[in-house]
């Protein structure tokens, strides 16, 4: 666990305590909140998913207990499964919304899991075929691309991209200095204190979010 701020022993102890007490469910909850609040799709948490699946299997095999304990274990399982399913569902919704943009950009494509990449490819093919069949084949040759408005367009302007300048609410998990932000935004935002609720443009905090220093609320 990094103690990169170098503020002395207190931050290191905090990180260590967080490290030993954070369960998979906490990590999943954090990933779920970040995914829901962010305008673009974030990195897939593959390790989390596989460890949770193992635990799910173990929990559902427990038997021979009294009905009360069984129902409590079932409740816990339901809660975890809800988080996992909602997380995957939000990601799928984002993929469907920005399908062409994700297929075009390698950076976004690398953030998807293998199954999601297969899904995105087949979804993109289906959508392309549908648009061709219903509308594009009936338009003149210069205008029948699903990515460009016309042959005269220089870039793919028919592709909706995620809005990185939308505003999100976030909390820093540790003190963040100006070095953690991108240099081009350093005149807008210079620091962030721990646990202070901040309304900020998403693209300013994109880098600390990827490094796990900020949580979206």
């Amino acid at each position, binding site marked *: 666990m990094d103690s990169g701020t170098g503020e002395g022993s207190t931050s290191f102890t905090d990180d260590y305590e967080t490290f030993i007490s954070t*369960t998979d469910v906490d990590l999943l909850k954090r990933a779920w909140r970040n995914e829901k609040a962010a305008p673009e799709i974030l990195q897939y948490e593959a390790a989390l998913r596989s460890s949770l699946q193992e635990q799910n299997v173990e929990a559902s095999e427990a038997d021979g207990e009294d009905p*009360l*304990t069984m129902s409590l274990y079932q409740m816990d399982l339901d809660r975890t499964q809800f988080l996992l399913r909602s997380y995957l569902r939000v990601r799928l919704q984002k993929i469907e919304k920005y399908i062409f943009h994700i297929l075009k950009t390698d950076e976004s494509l690398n953030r998807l899991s293998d199954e999601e990449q297969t899904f995105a490819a087949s979804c993109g093919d289906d959508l392309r075929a549908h648009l061709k069949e219903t509308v594009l084949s009936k338009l003149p040759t210069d205008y029948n691309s699903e990515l460009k408005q016309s042959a005269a367009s220089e870039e793919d302007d028919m592709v909706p991209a995620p809005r990185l300048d939308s505003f999100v609410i976030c909390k820093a998990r540790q003190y963040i200095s100006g070095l953690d932000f991108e240099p081009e935004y350093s005149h807008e935002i210079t620091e962030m204190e721990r646990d*202070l*609720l901040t309304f900020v443009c998403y693209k300013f905090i994109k880098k600390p979010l990827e490094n796990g220093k900020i949580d979206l609320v």
Partner: protein
Amino acid sequence: MAGQSGSQLSLFTPDEVEFVAEDELVEIVPNLRMDSLNFICGDYGPFYPQIAIQVPLWLALALKKRGKCTIRPPQWMSIENLTQVLEGERESHAFQTLPFHYVEISRLLFDRARDDIPDVYMVRSLVEDIRDVRFHKVETNLENFTNSSLVLQWKNMAAMEVNIIRAFSGRALQAFYRHENEQAVPDLDRTQDRQPQNLNDRPRVCRSFCCIPIFPLHHWIDKIVFISCLLDYCPTIVFLWRAYCLFVVPLQRNLRPR
């Protein structure tokens, strides 16, 4: 029209906020003996009768529902503390320190563990007063949004309050940001903006209001009618002009924004 992309995706329903709040720890006093529970979300127990123990709120409520425990209200929910917090809220502009999920926790406890809270009516009315005062402060702070407020920081705001203003404040801040940087940021997202290109030339204020464009057509027609009257050329134009004056102009005047 300014708006967050995927606004439906990024909104949390109140039930989801409550779901997150149910993981907060509360103290219970069980009245049964039970071995420790090894959940995916953590290990709790073992449970001994009359020995207090900390468990997540959802587990406490489940046990309470089955009559297996009593819930001890958290420290901050005492009448003295809430009265103090209410005084503090009324006196200062800042928010007082309350747990992040105080709204959800208090609501769940009032609904399902009413008999475990002493003076529950008093506590309930205090919490509701605190909520009102705080939300009034939130509304006042929203009025201070300006075009220079690209990074806003609020201390001690609670989860439910944040959730209520999330959609609106996000859209408002984004509108300010876009109006500030309209020349710098090209408009990539065509599906959001369905208006034609010449909308960018209109004054910015118009975007905020639903104004119906009113063209000063009558000035030009006035000139044409005057000339035609002189020439005694087209009485039909005069007739049409009179009809326009009598019916259309008053209608336009009523619709003009003040």
